[in-house]
């Protein structure tokens, strides 16, 4: 328990991932859904770093940097969509975005 291992990181990462996934699935506010996506990507990064250390290989850290890049782009586009939705519907409730339902 008191010896820090990769298993610690894996379990913490799983917890953060599940919390983020639950947030994506159950929240109605799009801002919170986007924040939950960031939580999920953070959990992935935690795994990358843990295995980078475990395997003494820097590739994991490089890919963590790429993940952060993708997260930044995703946040920018997602928040742009959010602003567009807010202009269109005057709310950030995801239930109001049903144009594509047909």
């Amino acid at each position: 328990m008191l010896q820090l291992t990769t298993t610690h990181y894996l379990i913490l990462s799983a917890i953060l991932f599940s919390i983020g996934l639950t947030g994506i699935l159950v929240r109605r506010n799009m801002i919170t859904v986007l924040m939950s996506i960031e939580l999920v990507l953070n959990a992935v990064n935690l795994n990358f770093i843990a295995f980078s250390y475990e395997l003494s290989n820097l590739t994991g850290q490089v890919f963590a940097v790429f993940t952060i890049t993708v997260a930044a782009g995703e946040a920018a586009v997602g928040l742009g969509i959010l602003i567009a939705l807010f202009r269109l519907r005057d709310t950030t409730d995801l239930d109001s975005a049903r144009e594509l339902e047909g």
Partner: protein
Amino acid sequence: MAEFLVAHGDALLFYLFGGIAVLGALMVVGLRNPMYGAIALLSCFLAVAALFLLRHAEFVAAVQVFVYGGGIMVLFLFVIMLVNLHRLRERRIFLGQWPIAAVMAVLFVAMLGVAALGQGAPAAAVEPGRLVAVGGEAVGNSQAVAWMLYRDYLLPFEIASLFLLVAMIGAVVLGRRR
């Protein structure tokens, strides 16, 4: 006491920052006001950056603080302030299926936990020195990451910059008033 802290300090720091991260994540999902959620998310990001430091990823930890704690967080706060929060008073903040989702999340964690705990000992001994070395010479984590990034992963790096350009143009087009 001092010996105990020296021997197990990293594990204690892991539990401290891991607890902060989990608490922050729970507050992001559970709090009604997105503004409080964003602040909780910031604490979660910073705790994760500290966890990176514990695993010899100094450069990624710095990037985490700059990009997540700086850039993305400012973006979120701006957007939260742009949309009128007074109109966001929803009757319910969760969809109807939230109990099922919560149960599934707990089961998912249990499954991954069993899988992680079932692993045996690591195949090879950890050599943290290799995370701060270029060609066997100890230089520092940032230099080692840069060496790998610009030599072995140059094409993905350029594609990432192109991706950021596309995302930036997309965000500008989406946010434009027509």
